[in-house]
C-alpha cells in the first residue's frame, strides 16, 4: 500500500460513508430543517476536504487506497485520478447547489414525500461518490445499482401519470443495462481472473482475446442503456422532464454522467487493448449521431424541460468522442466539458424550475413576457445555455477549444466539424428558448413593470445563479485546472 499522506483515507471515507450515515439519520429522524442543514453542511465539508485531496492527487499522481487493508488482487481499491477528481468536484458543487435549492423548493411546494427525497438524495450522493472513486468492476456494478435505485424514485417523486410511466421505463432500461453490465463483469472475471481496474490496466496489453472484447461490448451496451447514449436514450427525456426541478437537475448533471463516465473509464483504462481504432471511430460516430439527434429533438420540443432533457442526450455524445481521440488534450477537453456541462445543466434545470414556479406551467409559448418577471433567473438560464453551447466567456468554450485542438492535432478533422455543429445546434435551441422568454406579444406599456409577482425566495434564486457563475468562472481557470485533469490520462498518442 503506497504511503499516502494522512488526509486521503479520511476524506474518501467521509465522501462515501458520511452521506450514507446522513441517509440513515434522515430515515430515523424526519425533521426537514435539520436534514437540510445537515445536507448543506455535508456539501460544504466535502468541498473543503476536496481541496487537499486535489493537492495530493496533483502531487503524487493517481491515488490508490485498498479498502480493508487487503492487497490488490483480493481487496477493493479506491482509485482517484484527474477524471475521478473532476467528477467528485462536480458532484460536490452540484450537490451543494441542489441541496440549497431543494430545501427552499420542498418548503415552498410543501411536498408530501419531502423526507423520502432527502433520504434518496443522501444515498444517491454516497452512491455517486463511491462510483467515481471505485476501482473495482463489481463494486462499480453495485454503486451503479445504488445510483439507479435512487434515481428512479426521484423521477417517481413527481406525482402524476407521466412521471410514473417515465420512471417505469427508466427502471426497465436500467434493469436490462445492469444485467448486461454484470454479464460483462462475469466474462472479464472468467477471462482474466481480475476485478481491480488498476490491475487490469497494468496487464501487458497483448492482443486481448475475443472474450474480453465481447465483455467490453456487453459492458458498453449495459452502460449505454443506463447512460441513455444515443440509440438507447428513449427513457431520459421523458424521465428528466417529468421529474421535479431539483431531481431533474441531479439526474441530468450527475446520474446520466456517471454511466457515461464509466464508458470512458473502462474503454481508456483497463480495456485499452480490447478495441481497435476502427471500433473507436464507430463509437465516435455513435457519439456524433447522439449529438445531432439530441439537438434536433431539442429544437422540436414545445415545452421547456424536454428541451433541456434532450440537450442532456446531445451533450452525452461528446463524452464518446474521447474514445477515437484518446490524447491528453482530448482527455482534458472532455473532462472539462463534463464538468462545465454538469454545472450548467444543473443551473438550467433549477432556473427552469423557478420559471415554472413563477408562471405555473412550462409551455414554451407561455413563457412570453416572463423576462420581466424573473429577469435574474432568466439571465442565469441564458448564461447556463451559453455554457452548454460552448460559447466564449464560459468554460464550455475552453472545453470545445481543447476538443477541437485534439481533433485537429490528430488529423481527425471530422470530429472537429461535428463538435462545431454540436455547439451551433446547442446555441440554436438555447436561444430559441430565451427568445420565447424575451418575446412580448402585447406592446410593452400595457404590462406593468414588476420584478417578481410574488418574491421568489432567496434559496430558490441564488443556486442557479451561482452554478451558472461557476460555469462561467471555469472559463477563466483552464490553465489552473489543466494539470489536475491530466493526472492519469492515458499515455496514448499525445
Amino acid at each position: 500500500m503506497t504511503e499516502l499522506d494522512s488526509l486521503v483515507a479520511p476524506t474518501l471515507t467521509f465522501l462515501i460513508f458520511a452521506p450514507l450515515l446522513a441517509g440513515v439519520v434522515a430515515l430515523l429522524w424526519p425533521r426537514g430543517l435539520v436534514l437540510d442543514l445537515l445536507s448543506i453542511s455535508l456539501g460544504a465539508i466535502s468541498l473543503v476536504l476536496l481541496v487537499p485531496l486535489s493537492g495530493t492527487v496533483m502531487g503524487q499522481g493517481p491515488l490508490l487506497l485498498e479498502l480493508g487493508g487487503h492487497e490488490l488482487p483480493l481487496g477493493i481499491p479506491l482509485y482517484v485520478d484527474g477524471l475521478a477528481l473532476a467528477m467528485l468536484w462536480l458532484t460536490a458543487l452540484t450537490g451543494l447547489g441542489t441541496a440549497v435549492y431543494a430545501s427552499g423548493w420542498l418548503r415552498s411546494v410543501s411536498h408530501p414525500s419531502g423526507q423520502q427525497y432527502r433520504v434518496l438524495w443522501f444515498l444517491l450522493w454516497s452512491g455517486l461518490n463511491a462510483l467515481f472513486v471505485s476501482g473495482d468492476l463489481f463494486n462499480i456494478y453495485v454503486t451503479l445499482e445504488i445510483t439507479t435505485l435512487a434515481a428512479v424514485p426521484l423521477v417517481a417523486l413527481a406525482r402524476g401519470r407521466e412521471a410514473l410511466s417515465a420512471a417505469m421505463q427508466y427502471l426497465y432500461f436500467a434493469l436490462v443495462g445492469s444485467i448486461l453490465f454484470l454479464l460483462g463483469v462475469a466474462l472479464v472475471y472468467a477471462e482474466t481472473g481480475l476485478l481491480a481496474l488498476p490491475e487490469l490496466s497494468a496487464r501487458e496489453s497483448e492482443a486481448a482475446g475475443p472474450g474480453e472484447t465481447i465483455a467490453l461490448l456487453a459492458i458498453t451496451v449495459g452502460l449505454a442503456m443506463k447512460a441513455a447514449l444515443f440509440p438507447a436514450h428513449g427513457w431520459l427525456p421523458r424521465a428528466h422532464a417529468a421529474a421535479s426541478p431539483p431531481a431533474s437537475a441531479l439526474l441530468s448533471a450527475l446520474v446520466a454522467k456517471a454511466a457515461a463516465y464509466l464508458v470512458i473509464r473502462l474503454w481508456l483504462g483497463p480495456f485499452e487493448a480490447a478495441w481497435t481504432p476502427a471500433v473507436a471511430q464507430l463509437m465516435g460516430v455513435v457519439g456524433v449521431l447522439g449529438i445531432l439527434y439530441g439537438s434536433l429533438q431539442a429544437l422540436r420540443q414545445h415545452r421547456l424541460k424536454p428541451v433541456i432533457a434532450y440537450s442532456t442526450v446531445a451533450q452525452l455524445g461528446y463524452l464518446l468522442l474521447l474514445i477515437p481521440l484518446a490524447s491528453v488534450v482530448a482527455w482534458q477537453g472532455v473532462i472539462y466539458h463534463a464538468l462545465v456541462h454538469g454545472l450548467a445543466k444543473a443551473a438550467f434545470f433549477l432556473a427552469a424550475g423557478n420559471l415554472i414556479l413563477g408562471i405555473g406551467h412550462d409551455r414554451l409559448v407561455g413563457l412570453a413576457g416572463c423576462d420581466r418577471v424573473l429577469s435574474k433567473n432568466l439571465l442565469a438560464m441564458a448564461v447556463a445555455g451559453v455554457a452548454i453551447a460552448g460559447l466564449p466567456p464560459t468554460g464550455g468554450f475552453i472545453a470545445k477549444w481543447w476538443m477541437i485542438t485534439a481533433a485537429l492535432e490528430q488529423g481527425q478533422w471530422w470530429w472537429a466539424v461535428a463538435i462545431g455543429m454540436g455547439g451551433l445546434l446547442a446555441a440554436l435551441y438555447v436561444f430559441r428558448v430565451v427568445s420565447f422568454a424575451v418575446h412580448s406579444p402585447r406592446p410593452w406599456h400595457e404590462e406593468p413593470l414588476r420584478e417578481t409577482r410574488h418574491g421568489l425566495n432567496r434559496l430558490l434564486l441564488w443556486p442557479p445563479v451561482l452554478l451558472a457563475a461557476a460555469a462561467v468562472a471555469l472559463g477563466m481557470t483552464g490553465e489552473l485546472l489543466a494539470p489536475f485533469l491530466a493526472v492519469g490520462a492515458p499515455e496514448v498518442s499525445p
Partner: protein
Amino acid sequence: MPVSDLLASGFDVLLCIGLLWLAWQAITGTGLFRSVVMFMVFGLMMAVTWARLGSPDLALAEAAIGAGITGALLLNACRAAVSEMRSDEQPLRDRPSGVPKWLALPLSLAAGVGLAWLMHSIPRDGGPTPEAAIKAAETHFLDNPITSVLLDFRAIDTLLEMAVLLLALVGARVLLDQRRLPALYPVPDHPMPMLPSLLAMITPVLLLTGLYLFWAGSHAPGGAFQAGALLGALGVMYQLAGRFTPTHEPGTVNALLITVGLGLFSLFACLSLLWAPAPLSHPEQGAYALVLLIEFALMLSIAATLVLLFVGSRSLQLRRSTNHPGGRQ
C-alpha cells in the same frame, strides 16, 4: 465411468433441461399466475443447481430469497393484477413490443449460442484474484470463505448492497406517499381455523433455524442473508395471518429495524480508521465479535425490509391475540 459419475451427470442433464424448459414456460406461458408458479419452481431448481455446483450458501440463499421472497412478491403482483382490475382495463394482453417476433427469436438464439460457446471456451485457469482469495480464506479468522469475502475482503459490496435494499424500500414508500392502495390481504373478520395453530407451531422452528443459520454463517454455509430471509418469511406468515396490521404512521421501531444494518456497518467503516490506515479494516482482536454483531444487525435489517417490501406499507404493528379482530385501518 464410475456409476456415481454417470448418475451425477445424468442428474445434471435432467437438471439443465428442466431449468431451460421451466424458463421457457415462465416467459412464453399465457397466464400470469402460471408463469409465476413456473418461475418459482425454476428458482427452486436453481437452488439445487447451486448445491450441485458446490456452493451450499448460495443454495440456501437462492431457496430463501430467490424462490421464497421473490415468489411471494410475484404472487402479490398476481393478486393485485386480478383484484384491482378496473372495469375499463383490458385483460393483460401483450402489445407488439417494437421488435417483431421473427426477428427477436433468431437474434436471441444467436446471442445465446454465441454466449454458450464463449462461456464454454473461456479457459478456467483461475487468475490472481481466485488464488489470493482461496489462500487468504484459509488463514482468515472466519472459517466460511464466502462470509470472509463478504464481510472482510469485499466488505464495501455488502455495505452498498444493504443500501440498495434500503433504497428499494424508500422507493416503495415514495409511491405509497402518492397514492394509498388498498391492502392486498385485509385483516380477515373471522380468523382461518388452521392458521393460528400452524403459526404457533412454525414460529419457534423458524426462529431457531434462522438463528442457527446466522450463527453458523461464520464457519459453515449460512450467514446473515439466509437467516434474514428466513425471519422475513416468518414475518410474511405473521402478516398473512393478520397478526401484523399495516399502518401508515412512521413507527420508530420499524425505522430502527430497517436502518440498523446499514447504520452499524457504516459506523464500523468510519470507526475502522481509528485502528487502521484504510476504512473497513477489522481490528486485530475482537474482530470476530464485531463481525457477529454486524451480521446480526444485517440479519435484522434484511428481515424487516423484506417483510415491509412484501406488505407494502409504511410500518407494521404486532397485535396481541387473534380472537378479536384489529381495528379496520
